[in-house]
Structures are given as structure tokens and as C-alpha cells.
């Protein structure tokens, strides 16, 4: 149980800056997801909190105490790694108990803590197995068990689900969320998957090239992106961007409109476009249209609507409120 504060945290490798000053105040028990494309510095940021990377400047505080110089163990954190990082020669029990053994916890307490974590994670039948005898999902659980038994102040997750298949990922996502609610431990979770970010986060940090572009509640970020990057990165299919002039907006440089905010009609509205191809997904249909000058626009409409045939000309319409206007610097106007 703890708060976590990042105060203008920066990191550079030599002359290259990879984190350009991140500020966030994480309250006790909050689930924060850091999301961004690969190479945006999100993992580096997490590893700085973990103490696996040095901090060039700024300050990281856990429960109000500066931990910049502290060893990972002294920070009272636990980390779940992408490839699980289980000790291959140890049984599940020993994997979970290792940190406690190092900390010289009494034997019966270790047994009790591992037992309760195993029960929570449904790992009881596997305690004597070696990691190589487990499935991917079970290994992931062991990795989480190893984090839980330490009763840390902060959980750190480094893309924990990216090695699992799609179905298992959905299931584990729910389990992680449930577990975190149950334990109420402050968590920092790194992912490049926006679905994970949207579903897990109490608040999310969208990172772009070492900068925290936006910090906020998932829906808030979705509905009100502060930068062009965030508008493009969060949401699938991605937001359509058009030059401001081409849609009659006098301020700003670019206008973004989410695919679900565009209506297709036969009668003239704002822009004319030709249907290039359709993707019928059942519940919804993605219609890709080409504007006269060649740009592709994606429209998401209900699956119950008739499928437009390819090659027909349709009109694109939207409400003024649906337009997100961005300036030349990519910031929202």
C-alpha cells in the first residue's frame, strides 16, 4: 500500500534523451497503465521505478521517500517480466519463495504466504513442478505469485501478457484486474496494447518518444485526446486525420475524426468519397473509402446496416462536435 510519485523524471543514455521529464502522482491502490508504441521509453520508465535503470535527473518517491539511489529490493516493489523470468531449475514453490528466503522470512511464514498466493492463483496442484512443465498461462501466474508473496508496496508489470495467445490474454487480463482490486496494491503496468490499457487502467499514461503526452482516465483520454499522437494511437481502427482546410476548419492544421463518428449517406453532406472495400466483422462493419485526392478514410458502422458495394460514391457526414482540431505542433486546439 503506497503512493508513487514521479517528479520530472528524466533519463538519457549518453547524449540521447530517452525520457524527457515525466510527472505523475499515483495514489494508493491505483492501477496506472503506461501505453505507447515500441521505443517510446515506457519500459525504460518502468525499469527506472524498479531500480533496474538509473535516473538521470528528477526524483522517484515511493510513499513519500526518495528511492532514486535505492536497490530494487529496498524499494519494496515486485515486478512481473514479459518472459516471466522464472528460475528454470526451481520448483514453482521455490520460485515464489525465493525472495522471501533471501529476506530471511521464517519458514512457516513463507509456506503460509506461498500457499495463500497459490490458492488465489489456482496454482496449488503445481507447486512442486518445474516451470518448463507449465503452460504459458500458468507460468504467468507463477510470475504473479512471486510478486504477490512479497507483499510489495508497488506492483510493476512489464508487458506481462504479450507472450500469451489471444484468448488467454483476455482471460489473464481479467484476472490481473480482479487480483489488483482484491489486493489493492498500487500498480504500474506497461503495455503496447491499447485494449489492455483501456480495460485495466484507472488512469493511463500515453507515452510518445519519451514524453508523457497525456495522463488521464481511459475514456477521458479516448474522448478528449490532447495531442494528435494520442488521438491516432488510442482507438482502433485509428482516427482519420484530414488537413483542416479540406473540411472547412480555419484554425489549426489537422482535424481528426473517429471512425464511429462519421455517417455514410447517399444525399450530399460534407465530403464525397468512393467505397474502396468493406470489412464486415458481424457486430460492426468497417468501410474504407477513398477521397478524390486519394486519402483513405475508415468509417465504422453497425453490422445491421446494409453493406455498401465497392466502387459506389457515398457522402461522409459528421457533427461539428466530433471534430478534434490539432495545431501545427500536434497539440489540441
Amino acid at each position: 500500500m503506497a503512493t508513487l510519485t514521479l517528479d520530472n523524471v528524466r533519463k538519457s543514455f549518453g547524449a540521447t534523451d530517452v525520457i524527457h521529464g515525466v510527472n505523475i502522482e499515483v495514489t494508493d491502490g491505483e492501477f496506472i497503465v503506461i501505453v505507447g508504441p515500441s521505443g517510446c521509453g515506457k519500459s525504460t520508465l518502468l525499469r527506472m521505478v524498479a531500480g533496474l535503470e538509473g535516473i538521470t535527473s528528477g526524483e522517484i518517491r515511493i510513499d513519500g521517500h526518495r528511492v532514486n539511489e535505492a536497490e530494487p529490493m529496498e524499494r519494496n516493489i515486485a515486478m512481473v517480466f514479459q518472459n516471466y523470468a522464472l528460475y528454470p531449475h526451481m520448483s514453482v514453490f521455490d520460485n515464489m519463495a525465493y525472495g522471501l528466503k533471501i529476506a530471511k522470512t521464517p519458514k512457516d511464514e513463507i509456506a503460509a504466504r506461498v500457499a495463500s498466493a497459490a490458492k488465489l492463483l489456482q496454482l496449488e496442484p503445481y507447486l512442486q513442478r518445474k516451470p518448463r512443465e507449465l503452460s504459458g498461462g500458468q507460468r504467468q501466474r507463477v510470475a504473479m505469485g512471486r510478486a504477490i508473496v512479497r507483499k510489495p508496496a508497488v506492483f510493476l508489470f512489464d508487458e506481462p501478457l504479450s507472450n500469451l495467445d489471444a484468448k488467454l490474454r483476455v482471460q489473464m487480463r481479467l484476472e490481473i484486474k480482479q487480483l489488483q482490486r482484491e489486493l489493492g496494491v498500487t500498480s504500474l503496468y506497461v503495455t503496447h496494447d491499447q485494449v489492455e490499457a483501456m480495460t485495466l487502467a484507472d488512469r493511463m499514461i500515453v507515452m510518445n518518444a519519451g514524453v508523457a503526452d497525456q495522463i488521464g482516465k481511459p475514456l477521458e483520454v479516448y474522448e478528449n485526446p490532447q495531442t494528435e499522437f494520442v488521438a491516432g494511437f488510442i482507438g482502433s481502427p485509428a482516427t482519420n486525420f484530414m488537413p483542416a482546410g479540406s473540411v472547412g476548419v480555419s484554425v489549426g492544421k489537422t482535424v481528426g475524426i473517429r471512425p464511429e463518428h462519421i455517417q455514410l449517406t447517399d444525399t450530399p453532406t460534407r465530403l464525397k468519397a468512393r467505397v474502396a472495400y468493406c470489412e464486415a466483422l458481424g457486430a460492426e462493419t468497417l468501410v474504407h473509402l477513398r477521397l478524390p485526392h486519394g486519402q483513405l478514410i475508415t468509417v465504422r458502422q453497425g453490422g445491421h446496416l446494409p453493406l455498401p458495394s465497392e466502387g459506389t460514391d457515398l457522402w461522409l457526414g459528421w457533427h461539428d462536435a466530433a471534430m478534434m482540431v490539432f495545431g501545427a505542433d500536434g497539440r489540441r486546439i
Partner: protein
Amino acid sequence: MSDQRGMVQRRGLGHWFTHLGLIIGVLFIFFPIWLAFVASTVTQPEIVRPPMPLLPGGHFIENYSKALFAGVNAPVATMMLNSLIMALGITIGKIVISLTSAFAIVYFRFPGRTVFFWLIFLTLMLPVEVRIVPTYEVIANFGMLNSYSGLIFPLIASATATFLFRQFFLTVPDELTEAARVDGASPMQFFFHILLPMSRTNIAALFVILFIYGWNQYLWPLLITTDPSMNTIVMGIKQMFPSGDDLADWPVIMATSILAMVPPVIVVISMQKLFIRGLVDSEK
């Protein structure tokens, strides 16, 4: 899978030829050993009189006990003990030293790290024979002639083993090191609790190779042990050869040769499983 089917289909004549070839090969290699064994079970006149006997005689116990407890210059039992101490000293020393130095080179950033690595690597190019005279000089000045330390120390560091462990450590995922750090393990705890158990099969494979290497040392023991009670068995065989007009006691010499082969064979057979696993897969 398709390869296997191909092999199965080749059953028939080719199959028999392969086996015939292998059997001939084995017999070819085994024959001298068999002759040595036969010679170690007969009497001196029987060896000298043609034709040479091809079946074991009835003096097995007599010849072997004579070799073990009396020998020619020193009892073979003593020589075997010397060999064992030298081989184990070299093997264990090499493994301990190369494990720790590979650990240092891979996991610690210290000034001159690369220099040290390349220095170690360079010594791979210097076989014992090249540096044997200066080494002798050093050992002699230390007063280590005719001693176990003299037998063991000059051969105790191994660039090959260091290099091998370095390569293995490099394949251990970084996350494992980081997980251990997060778990609060100190570097040495990481070494003993995680790295060492993971290197188990590699250590076993090296143990076999290095034990045989140590056991078969010939030139170095020959140089520094003048006292027969410090002779090792492999060089001891040579020392048993007669000089001048003496008569060679061939049955005893042959018994010694056979005895010299036994410990390496025991080591290989008893560690075969681990040894092969260490060579074939790295357990991760």
C-alpha cells in the same frame, strides 16, 4: 521426421553394411586394448614366446596384485592415488576458477574487463609445451618439485573453460538477473542460487573432459616428479620401461596400462547422462 523415415527405408543391405563397418571399426580400436589385457594375465615367458597368446591366461590376480602393491619403481596404487589427486585438483580447480572468472567478466563492469577477457583468450593459443621451461623454472624456485601443488597449480587455470562458461552465461536471459535483483539477491547469491544450478550440465560435461585431460597429463609430471613415490600412473608406465640390460616385466606393465584406463572409463560412464545433456542442450 522425414529424415527418420529416410533412415528406416534404407534398411536392407545398406543397413548391414553400416553395422559391419562400425563393428570392424570397434574391433580395430579394441584389439590393442584386448592384447594389453591378455598380456596382463599371462606370464613373461608366454608373452615373449611366439605366437603371442590371444586368450587370457590364469595369472590375472597375481599380475595385478604385483602391479598394485609392488610395481616396478613404485606401487601402482600409489601412482593411481597421485594421478587421482592431480586429476581432481586440476578439474575442480579449473572449474572453480573458470566459473568465477566467467562470472566476473560477464556480470561485472570493471576497468579493463575486455582487456582481461582477451588476455585469457590469448592464453588459449599457448599450449603447455610452449611455456613448459619457464613454468618449470618458476615451480622449481617455489620448491614445488615432487609435490602435489607442483603437479596441480601450473595446470589449474583454463581459458577454454572460462570461455565456455562465458558463452553459457551470455545466453542466460537478462530478465533472470533482474528478477533476482528484484528478489533482493546479492550478486554472489545470484551466482550460487541461480547461475550455478543452471550450469549443472555444463559443469558435468567439463568435469569429464577435464578429468581425462588431467589424468592423461604426461609431459609435466615427467618433468617435475623425480621421486617415484610422486609419479603419476600415465608417466609411471613409461618409467617402468627397462633401461639398459634390465628385463621388462611386461605382464605388470600391461596390468598398469589397463589400470590406468579404469578411472577415466568410470568417470565417463557414471557421468554419461549429464555429460551428453551438457553437450547437447542447455537447459533453459
